[in-house]
């Protein structure tokens, strides 16, 4: 990448990842530079007369006064190509696994020589070790005519097509594209977010759904299950491509993803999950400045696959580490700190990031989306701190994790009263198409019940549970059931780790029937304790573990069983009175 080999500047001082240099040739803000004899990658963040400040993306120990800084003339860019899927990269998209021989792809042309082409159009399909991908006409190319296109086997660095431009010149198109990470890739237009991203997690899909092209935040103190939830989403959500950004988190977690994903099967395609996944790892012990870049790198990779026509979901774990990297670099630059020491531009950086999520029509006219899900790690689990509160302003779904639930190992520990989804209103039609026209009403009933549960438990703490009237006790019973049978979903249970929209509908239906039956029975004199102690209540409470996918008739049996037993209870209880 480094073209001009003459030093543009020489190092004057070094402070952590920040290097100040005396400049004697032009360098522009945002330009990628090579620093020192080892050629460390850096980015110019400030220039002034005779000086410049560089953020270095690698360990700076050993840099000396007078070491050369060489400009590249290019903004900080990443190398995009078909080799991304199924592999792991560092924060600047350099491979962490040294692969063996060059991968060969089968090129299947989609256009013929002589056809007119325009930016963003699919030129050819690539078949290789991961899922199929496409070679696109570069975004910066004006209209042209396809002169030649390859067919058959080709490597990553081979020329795939030649396009004749209007000015008579010719441009070679390969599989590899370089794109500046901080610049969003263009699209034709944005579409309304009215398709749901199925996560397979009941509390999300049924209560707090996220739309394709939506943006969600998962805030939670340590140990509340952010990472497990992110991994669960990465495993079971119905995206075509997953970009998993481990930003300042644990190395062993990355190892977990790398070991587990190749063994797990995508429930829809039956292929190993790794084939649709790109892992970007800047673990907490890797250079801090690259952590700042890794988020943009991830989004750029997400947009690259979106432009091929895919629905992409990006998981960023955790955006707080990224914000801290901003803070650290800002501190070293000597900028004035704002709230909690974060730079004043924290909020605008967050909004720039989340704004890159969208459901779009690509330049080639395909419908595609990029959904962003960011974990937030608030210090001491306090949601009022700057990163959480600013994030809240830019996301549409907020899945707040609760320490109390996590301590009872009630996972996912999403607190239903602290969470929300602005996408829910747009998804009623989607659920109707899935065969659940009652979704909005059922969802509201569940949310109201959970709200009542909180109030009644507060009351029970004062007067004792026994002192509550029977119709309130049955409310508590129903709410307990919602918690145990519906909201709780073990990521480690083979039966329950994924729940399809059909099964969610069946479970919701069973719960609603139970609420009606139980309230009716109690109003006729049945004691709530008898319902709680009954065999059918236990069956209802364990339906998430006992009735798996594709066993819809067993839910019908369960409801019939429940109604029969409820009738028996009515007879015995009412007779006894």
């Amino acid at each position, binding site marked *: 990448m480094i073209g001009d080999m003459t030093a543009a500047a020489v190092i004057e001082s*070094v402070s952590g990842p920040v290097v100040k240099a005396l400049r004697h040739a032009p360098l522009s803000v945002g330009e990628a530079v090579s620093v020192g004899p080892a050629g460390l990658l850096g980015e110019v963040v400030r220039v002034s007369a005779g000086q410049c400040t560089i953020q270095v993306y690698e360990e700076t120990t050993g840099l000396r006064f007078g070491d050369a800084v060489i400009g590249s003339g290019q903004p900080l860019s990443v190398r995009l190509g078909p080799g991304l899927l199924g592999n792991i990269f560092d924060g600047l998209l350099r491979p962490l696994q040294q692969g063996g021989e060059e991968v060969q792809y089968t090129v299947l042309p989609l256009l013929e020589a002589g056809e007119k082409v325009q930016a963003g159009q699919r030129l050819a399909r690539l078949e290789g070790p991961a899922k199929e991908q496409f070679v696109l006409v570069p975004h910066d190319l004006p209209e042209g005519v396809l002169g030649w296109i390859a067919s058959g086997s080709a490597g990553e660095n081979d020329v795939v097509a030649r396009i004749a431009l209007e000015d008579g010149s010719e441009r070679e198109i390969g599989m590899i594209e370089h794109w500046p990470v901080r610049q969003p890739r263009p699209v034709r237009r944005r579409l309304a977010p009215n398709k749901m991203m199925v996560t397979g997690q009941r509390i999300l899909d049924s209560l707090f759904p996220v739309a394709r092209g939506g943006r969600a935040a998962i805030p939670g103190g340590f140990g509340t299950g952010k990472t497990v939830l992110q991994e669960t989403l990465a495993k079971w959500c119905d995206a075509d491509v997953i970009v998993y950004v481990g930003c300042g988190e644990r190395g062993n977690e*990355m190892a977990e993803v790398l070991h587990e994903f190749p063994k797990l099967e995508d429930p829809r395609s039956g292929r190993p999950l790794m084939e649709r996944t790109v892992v970007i790892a800047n673990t907490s012990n890797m250079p801090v400045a690259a952590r700042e870049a890794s988020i943009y790198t991830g989004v750029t990779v997400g947009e690259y696959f979106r432009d091929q026509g895919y629905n992409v979901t990006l998981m960023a774990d955790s955006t707080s580490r990224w914000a801290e990297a901003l803070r650290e670099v800002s501190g070293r630059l000597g900028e004035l700190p704002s709230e909690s020491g974060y730079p004043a531009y924290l909020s605008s950086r967050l909004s720039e990031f989340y704004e890159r999520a969208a459901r779009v029509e690509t330049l080639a006219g395909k419908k595609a989306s990029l959904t962003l899900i960011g974990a937030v790690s608030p210090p001491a689990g306090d949601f009022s701190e700057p990163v959480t509160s600013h994030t809240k302003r830019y996301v549409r779904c907020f899945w707040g994790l609760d320490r109390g639930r996590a301590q009872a190992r009630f996972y996912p520990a999403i607190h239903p009263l602290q969470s929300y989804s602005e996408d829910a209103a747009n998804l009623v039609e989607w659920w109707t198409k899935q065969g659940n026209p009652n979704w909005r009403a059922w969802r509201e009933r569940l949310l109201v019940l959970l709200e009542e549960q909180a109030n009644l438990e507060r009351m029970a703490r004062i007067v004792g549970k*026994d002192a509550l009237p029977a119709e309130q006790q049955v409310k508590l019973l129903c709410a307990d059931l919602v918690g145990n049978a519906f909201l709780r979903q073990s990521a480690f249970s083979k039966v329950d780790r994924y729940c399809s929209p059909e099964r969610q509908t069946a479970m919701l239906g069973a719960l609603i029937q139970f609420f009606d039956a139980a309230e009716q029975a109690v109003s006729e004199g049945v004691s709530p304790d008898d319902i709680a102690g009954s065999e059918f209540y236990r069956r209802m409470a364990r339906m998430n573990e006992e009735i798996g996918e594709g066993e819809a008739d067993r839910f019908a049996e369960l409801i019939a069983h429940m109604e029969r037993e409820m009738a028996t209870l009515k007879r015995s209880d009412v007779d006894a009175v």
Partner: protein
Amino acid sequence: MLFDLHAEDLVTAIEGPLVFLRRNVNVGLGDAVEVSHAGGDGRIGRVVAIDGDQVVVELLEDTTGLGIEDARIRFLGEPMLMPLGTGLLGRIFDGLGRPRDGGAPVAARVERRIDLAVINPAERGLPQDFILTGVSAIDVLNSLVRGQKLPIFSAGGLPHDKLATSIAQSARLLKEDGQDFAVVFCGIGVSHDSAESFRAAMEHSGALEHTAMFLNLASEPTAQRLLTPRYALTAAEYLAFDEGRHVLVILTDMTNYCEALREVSASHGEIPSRKGYPGYMYSDLATIYERAGWVEGRPGTVTQLPILTMPADDISHPIPDITGYITEGQVVMDRELDHRGIYPPIEVRSSLSRLMDQGIGEGFTDPDHPSLAQQLFASYARAAQVRILSSVVGREGLTPTDRLYLDFGDRFEAEFVQQTGVRELEESMEIGWRVLSLLPPVELSRLSDEQIATHIRAETASG
């Protein structure tokens, strides 16, 4: 060695541990420096900042007695290196990796930098070998696996040293294969007697020849504390990845480390973040904790058991908070349990082992282990709620089921958490099933009917 340069008349100022030099030699950031004066030994330091006209050296030893005029600087031209070779075990080193037991220095086979070992995440192996610690609250509920970093969140006056020592003495794999193990004890700002009592306990159990100790005592310079864990971990990595041992590293007390970090950061004039700790404390602690793990294709592992004392028993204090975000769980000690005479006073609800699910269950421990742990957590959480309720409405105001929960909570603490010797896993699990059988089966929603039939009903019948 690139060069070995002596210079005089360079020092412009000495402030606390920092020595300011005129910048007329070309040194690199992090380079080692030796500062001496007439009639004194060389004192070790490192370059911490370089700018246009000065070089700042941080001395890792006392600056007392140094003067501007007679200070003599020796630049070693490379970062600090640690000599490593056979014979690390059974030895005691100081905070900078030099022998403090009067023995000869370790015969160096290699010299390594103490701060550059970053394991490539793509080369890490997945930690999943269950370690039996003999402590029920850890083995059943917060299992430790090889290559994990599991800190003990404790507080002043709680028996964390006793617990760590007992784990160091008895930890082994469930299916003991007699592979080489080693313990690296790293004392950071510890008192002489706690270091000595650890040494004595290891000697008593005959494990001293498997142990290497790195001690920075409370009386020794603060700046050294930042390096002591790095020396200890460099040694641990050598023992694990070169000699193929399974190394358990005990780091105590990480709170002293963080205090030293704050002190040194303040002396550098850096902008403080939460409670005066530097903003990079997360990244800095990560460079220590992330050195746990194992590398695919290498024989040994490094498991970390850091101990920290929570200032004012506050788990939301930056030190435990940041640690909890980096480590793979935590074992939390509770003062109230300790007051009630329960040893080990482990508060299981706030404790967590993130790698537990990879190392337990079918093929690892017992097929019913995950369900048992889930049910114990769920029931104990409910018992804790009922306790709050009963403190308001009294035991009489509770429903009969809630009264059973109260009893369950008490017996769980008295029989399951409380223990005197070490326990086998079977014994721990059996106690778990036994206390659960106090509750009516309908309450046990995390267990399957078969599990209730096998474990709970049987317990009720025999008990």
